[in-house]
């Protein structure tokens, strides 16, 4: 599904990713944890193709395509989805109109007919219910005046509608209360299958209580410094990232 080799990237001349390697197979759920400033969100942005995030070295292959050669929208149409940590508000553009354009752009790419207005509405309503967003959210401006939790649920709702093959969730749990966390987790779990993969970027073990990851990676100083199973996340929850300091200082000495 996704192969990242020796990825280096910088933002405004500051090197953030320093040789990151990661392989994700279809159906797998990978959690990426790490201290603040480790480069977790940068990884999500680089993969999504955001402007200003420049890859200086390395390769990324997504479903046998050179991901880095694709435009932002092409990456999305190939099935890469990034749930934003801070989704933008776009007043004046209704959620409904936005989602319809988006769904149909994906369908066109998959050589499917565009959805009729009524079929789209049906799909959108179902997705809304799945993340417990009231239906009138469809009529409102994209994320306009949504609370933090509503924005996160709106991201998951989009993920459900767009049916991507790789979902990157950038701190989809931050700022959520327990109930909202459960809703987000249920949304994600309902989408898990043998072909769809997930990268879950999080600070806390909490989300991983609801979404069982296959692998947990620790990202520090722009690279994966440790990988393991769900047990690794529990270890971090107990002990923090202190062990990294020794590892990093050793590395510097070497």
């Amino acid at each position, binding site marked *: 599904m996704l192969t990242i080799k020796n990825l280096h990237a910088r933002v405004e001349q500051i090197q953030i990713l320093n040789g990151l390697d990661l392989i994700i197979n279809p159906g797998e759920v990978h959690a990426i944890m790490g201290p603040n400033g480790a480069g977790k969100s940068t990884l999500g942005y680089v993969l*999504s*193709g*955001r*402007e200003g995030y420049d890859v200086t070295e390395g390769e990324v292959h997504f479903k046998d395509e050179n991901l880095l050669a694709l*435009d*932002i*929208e092409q*990456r*999305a*149409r190939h099935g890469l*989805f*990034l749930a*934003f940590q801070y*989704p*933008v508000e*776009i*007043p*004046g*553009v209704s959620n409904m*109109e*936005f989602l319809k*354009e*988006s769904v149909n*752009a*994906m369908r066109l*790419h998959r050589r499917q007919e565009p959805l009729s207005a009524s079929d789209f509405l049906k799909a959108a309503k179902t997705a809304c219910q799945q993340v417990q967003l009231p239906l009138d959210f469809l009529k409102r*401006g*994209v994320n306009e005046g949504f609370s933090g939790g509503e924005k996160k649920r709106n991201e998951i709702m*989009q993920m459900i509608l*767009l049916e991507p093959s790789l979902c990157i969730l950038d701190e989809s749990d931050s700022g959520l209360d327990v109930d909202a966390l459960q809703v987000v987790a249920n949304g994600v779990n309902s989408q898990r299958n043998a072909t769809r993969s997930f990268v879950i970027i999080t600070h806390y073990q909490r989300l991983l209580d609801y979404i069982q990851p296959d692998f947990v990676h620790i990202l520090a100083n722009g690279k994966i410094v440790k990988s393991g199973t769900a047990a690794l996340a529990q270890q971090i929850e107990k002990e923090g990232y202190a062990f990294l300091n020794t590892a990093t200082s050793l590395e510097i000495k070497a």
Partner: protein
Amino acid sequence: MNPWFQGVVARAEAKSDSLSPLRQGAVHSLKETTWPGRRTEHWKYTSLSVLENLELVHTPSNQELTVAAIENVQTIDLLFVDGKLRTDLTALQLPAGLTISLLDKADGLQYVIATSFFSQIKPKRHLFGLVNDALANDILFISVASKSIIKPLIRIISHHSAGHEAHQRVLVRVQQAASVKIIEQIEGQGQHLSTNFTEFEVSEHANLEHYRLIQPSAEALHFGGNHFCLHQHAVLNSTLLGFGSVLSRTDIDILHNGEHANAKLNAISVLGDSAHFDLHSNVEHIKAHGKTTEQVRVIVGDKANAVFNGRIHIHPKAQKTQAALHNRNLLLSRRGQVNTKPELEIYADDVQCAHGATVAEIEEDALNYLQTRGIARDQALVMLNVGFIQELINQLPDPHLAQWLNQGLLPRLKEIAIT
């Protein structure tokens, strides 16, 4: 002196008809006028030099025109071609309480009433308003009797033919507790010059829903004005939509002449190529408890040029006034220009006022967000442009009319985004 203007003064002096006594003041003022240049405050960003070498016909053309209906909106259509009314007023079936006549053919009482406010609401400082006073021929007078609620939309279509010059005037009187909806559509072909001025008297507790659509040809030279006098508890909801042209200038005046009047003015302008659109608005609060909400949104693409001057003047007696004026400009091109100046003058101490102007480019974050959902960059740009304008369109009281306006707006927005 500008040769076109010299011609105007000569024609104004020579004109002799039943309305001549009404025009005298304007003719006199025109003779005294100094032709505005770049140093004239109100013409600082709009050059009149294009008027220097004009050869235009002053009599209306005979071209045949039909008016396309607005879907799901019942209208009373009044068609003007080059300032001449084509609609046979005697053939119109008007709802009770509504009178429409030409000033020179109005009956005795109507004539007296109409002439009593001809050029009384429109301030004298508007140079092209004076030209209109002196030269407009078919002056339309629309009167809504007190307590009459007029359901159909009164639609005034002003068509201007290529190579023509025309001056058109409308007077509207909405009497006590009456309610009416009026749309003015200004259209045209090729190079032409037009002045379209309308004066509205909105009486106590009356309600006016008003629209003006300025969509002439790219080569048009257009000067327009909407001038409103609001009496106690009058409600005005006015929407202006302009696409600009070589020279397009509109002046809006709102006078709060009674307490508790409520004025809402939304203006939208979408400018591409080298279109120019100049909007000057002036709101006078002379009585207490008035409310004004004015929002102006402009999209400037390519080499277009937007000018906005919005003034709200709160006089000493206008306590408890609530006034807000916001101008937002979306600049899509490095070659486009925006000159904006919101002005608030407050001489009363117990008021709530806000004003502001912004000029911004498309938000990259929003563009990126749409793209990450598979929407192509060009398409995303169009969506953001539409969104910028749609916030105001969504406020229109009539959804059918909003839909109809969108049919004209969306293609323009697409053209602009892609250049």
